[in-house]
Structures are given as C-alpha cells and as structure tokens.
C-alpha cells in the first residue's frame, strides 16, 4: 500500500535519514520504533508532505506522492496525528472534526449566504456523522466543549478522531500513548484495534513497548536515521541490534 524507496533527508550538512525503505501492506498495524532522535517523526513528515526528501521515492497505492504538498497527500488518503498535540484549541471538539471533514461539504457560497435548505441539511447530516466519529474515541459527551480544555489523553484521542474524519486509507499515528496513564493506554489500544478492524491501515510510532507488542503485526526499528531491523514483534524482541540500540552495548561483548 505504502512503499518508501531509499528515502534520504539532509538538514544542511546533517544527514538525518539514510536509505530508509519499508513497505506497509493493506490492513496492517505497522509499528515504527526506535530511540529518540532516530528520525521516526521525520519519516512521518516526509510521507505527509510537510518535508521534502533529499532523495528517494514514496509510492502510495501505485501513485508517486513524493514531493506532493500536504493537502494532496491527504486527498490521496493518508492522514496523521502529531507527536506534540496539535488540536484546534479554540474550537469545539465537534468543529475540530468538521474541519477534518471539510471535503465532504458540497454546498455553495450562495447556499451559505442565504442559509438555504441544502446548507442546513448538509450541516445537520455531517454534524451527525462527526458525532459518530467522536464516539469511536468516546468523546461524544464533550462535543461542544473547547478542545483546549481537554486533558492530555483526550486531546490525543481527539486528534486521532480528527485524522479519521479526513477519510484516510492509511493513518499515521505519532506516539499516541505519550502522556497517558495505563488505563487510558489500555483504552487507546482497543480503540486503535477497532479502527484497524474497520478497514484502516495504521502506521504507529510509539515508545511504549506494551502498545507495540500488543497491537502491531509488523515492526520496523530505526536508529540514527536507518532501518536496523524489521519483522514481527517477537522477532524484533530477540534481535541483538535492537537491544543494543535501546539498552546500549554490553561492555564485554563490545
């Protein structure tokens, strides 16, 4: 479904990504892990079009999306969340979702100006749909509150729902469990599994190994801008390079 071919990225003289290649197949929950600074978020930024790769290609559903601007990537069916939460704080939860759904609105500016039935009907229908999306992350009761007033974990969930509202085929989720307590994390894992079951392919950056081991079907490990290992969670757990990357090398064996 999504294929990265030899992606490299330089910031000035600093090479932050070097020959990154991996493939996500449809229906997967794909985990991207690695120590801080390994380049995981940079990979997301490049896929979503916020950064341009220095070299390499990105193929999504057989079309080349390398160097496409973010809104085109989203139209193609890739949506994402952010590591540092970025909800529209001054808007209500419902409005946040409606912004994500903006492409589904078809009424004209004339309908808007005269408040014609077409506009009213469409707004009503899509508001109901937005409520359905909010219900996936269990936030319907707070629909009319300002997003800025939510707790950390709730904002992350709202961001997830907002990304879903763009009707993606592939969902990139950047550290969803960061700042969540164990109970919230548990609920989040179930929600992600449910989203996946509903037909969304998911690519997940996460530090919480419990989440990765619990829900990912396939994992790629990054360190210093390169993919150092990939495979099923069980295989990865045993991989020597991965253990080294996370825990450091054993002095005797080094």
């Amino acid at each position, binding site marked *: 479904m999504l294929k990265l071919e030899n992606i490299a990225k330089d910031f000035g003289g600093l090479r932050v990504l070097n020959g990154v290649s991996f493939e996500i197949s449809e229906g997967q929950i794909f985990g991207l892990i690695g120590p801080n600074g390994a380049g995981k978020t940079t990979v997301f930024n490049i896929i*979503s079009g*916020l950064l341009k790769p220095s070299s390499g290609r990105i193929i999504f559903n057989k079309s080349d999306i390398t160097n496409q*601007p*973010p*809104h085109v990537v*989203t*139209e193609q069916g890739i*949506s*994402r969340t*952010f590591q540092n939460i*970025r909800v*529209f*704080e*001054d*808007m209500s939860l419902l*409005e946040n979702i*409606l*912004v*994500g759904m*903006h*492409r589904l*609105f078809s*009424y004209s*500016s004339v309908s*808007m*100006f005269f*408040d014609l039935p077409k*506009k009213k009907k469409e*707004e009503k229908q899509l508001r109901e749909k937005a409520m359905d999306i909010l219900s996936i992350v269990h936030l319907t009761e707070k629909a009319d509150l300002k997003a800025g007033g939510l707790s950390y974990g709730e904002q992350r969930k709202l961001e997830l729902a*907002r990304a879903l509202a*763009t009707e993606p085929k592939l969902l990139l989720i950047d550290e969803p469990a960061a700042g969540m307590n164990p109970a919230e994390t548990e609920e989040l894992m179930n929600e992600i599994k449910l989203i996946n079951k509903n037909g969304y392919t998911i690519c997940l950056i996460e530090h919480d190994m419990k989440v990765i081991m619990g829900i990912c079907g396939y994992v790629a490990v990054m360190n210093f801008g390169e993919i150092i290992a990939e495979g099923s969670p069980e295989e990865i757990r045993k991989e020597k390079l991965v253990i080294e990357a996370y825990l450091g090398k054993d002095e005797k064996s080094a």
Partner: protein
Amino acid sequence: MEKFQRGKGNGLTDLITSFWQTYNTLIYTIFVHGMLALSIYITLACGQLSLGNAAFMGIGAYTSALLTMKMNAPFGLSLIAGGMMPAAVALIIGIPTLRLSGVYLAMATLGFGEVVRVAFLNMSITGGSLGLNGVPLKTELWHLVLVIGIFIYFFIRLRDSRFGRILEAINEDEVVASVMGIKTTYFKVWAFTIGAFIAGVAGGLNAHFTFFISPREYGFEPAVDILTFAILGGTRTLWGPLAGSTVLTTLPELFRFLGPYRLAVNGLILLLVVLYLPNGIVSKETFKNIKKIFNGSGCLN
C-alpha cells in the same frame, strides 16, 4: 420662528435636525470605518496580517468616483465596480504574497500600498496630487446602513459554515490545516480578496460623501488606523472590529476641547487596552460575561 415651524414646533425634532447637521459626516464616517474594520477582520480571522486595505479602499474610491463622474454610471453600479476592482487586484497580488506569512506579509502589503499611493499621485486620470474634486454627493445614510448590514450578515453566516471553520483552522494552526487536506493558500487568497472588496465598497461610499478624494487618504497612516480598529476592538468576533472603529472614530469628537492633544487620547486608550484587555474590548468571553450578568450569577464570581 421659521425654524420651529419646519420642525413642526417640536423641540426634540429640532434638536435632532441640528445634531444631524453637525454630526452627519461623523456618523457617515463611523459606518465607513466599520466596513474598513470588517475588511481587515476577515484576513485577521485566518491569521494573516495585511496592511493593504487602505490601498484597496483607495482603488475602490477612485474607481467608483471616476465611473460616476466621467461615465455617469448609476451609483449602485459604480459601488459594485468599486468593490470588484480592488478584489481583482487582490486576487492577482494575493497569489504570490499569501505564501508569505506574519511580518513578511505585512511588509509586502505595506509596499503594495505605497505603490498604489504613488500610482494615484502620478496618473493623470486620478488627478495626481490634487486628487479628484467634485465627486457627486450620492451617499445617503440608508445606503451605509444597508451595505454594512449585508456585510455583517455575511460574517454571521460565515461563522457556522465550512468556509468559516476553514479560516479559523488556518488561523489556529496552518500546518495542521494543510494536513487536514485544506488548500491553505487558496482560502487565504479568498479571504484577502473578500477583504479588498469590502474595503473598496467602503472607499466608494466614502468618496461619494466627502466630495473630494486625494492619494494621501489611502497611504500608510490610514492603513495603520484600520489595523488599530481591529486590534482595539478585538479580532476574535466580528463585533470587536466594529466596536473598535466606532470608539476610535467618535473619541476625537468627544475630546475636541483638548484641541491638538485629542489624538494623543486615542494613543493612550490604545495603550491601555493593549495592556489590560489584550484580546480587545470585545472578546468571546464578553458575551459569556454579559449572559452571566443577565442570569444574575456572574457578578460575584
């Protein structure tokens, strides 16, 4: 005695008549400034600081004045043309400049304003530095009320629509908006163009009651004044800029006794508002507080 008869012997009517004769220009100006404040509000609503609205007002003023003076065009038509002309210009300059943001966009639009002013100064059709003299007096109070009413209605409709939400999203976080699939530049150009249209219509209405227009009315100073209306009033709701423009237009009249110092009062008030009401005199909380007071619960907490 004659005067009283005209007022049907009613002292109140007479008072109103003399008040109107003294202050009609001020009241007209309040409406025009209100429109200008709205014209910058829509660009601020999507987070863009544009200082080109005085120039757009100028383009609208000259366009509609020239149409009524030289072509004898009907007033309504020349007003619409006075809005369309700056809107077209905004569309052309908006596409490259709205890729800029923050202070860079402010600089670019300021530069554009200067170009427009110098053009007015040097073109023969605009009368050069002498400006245009003898613009027919066509603007009446009901025109102003009707036009500003339409603009306010538009902004109210905008608030709960797709377009309004998109502008707000761009204002809050442009990067996230683009990741939501929003063509941010496209919508910013639209906001800019609508702002230019509103400023142009305001310019046209203004030209048809001041009798005389000249390039200096559309230079740097009015550009900053327009921004001040919005900052003082608050940019989070459409009522903020309207309140700001009304206050700043009325105060110099109230403080007329201070003579040349009266403009300093404006500066002082602006300073106090920025210091103590950083969101302007009308913010979203204002309405909540008013509601609370009416519900009788808010005053104490």
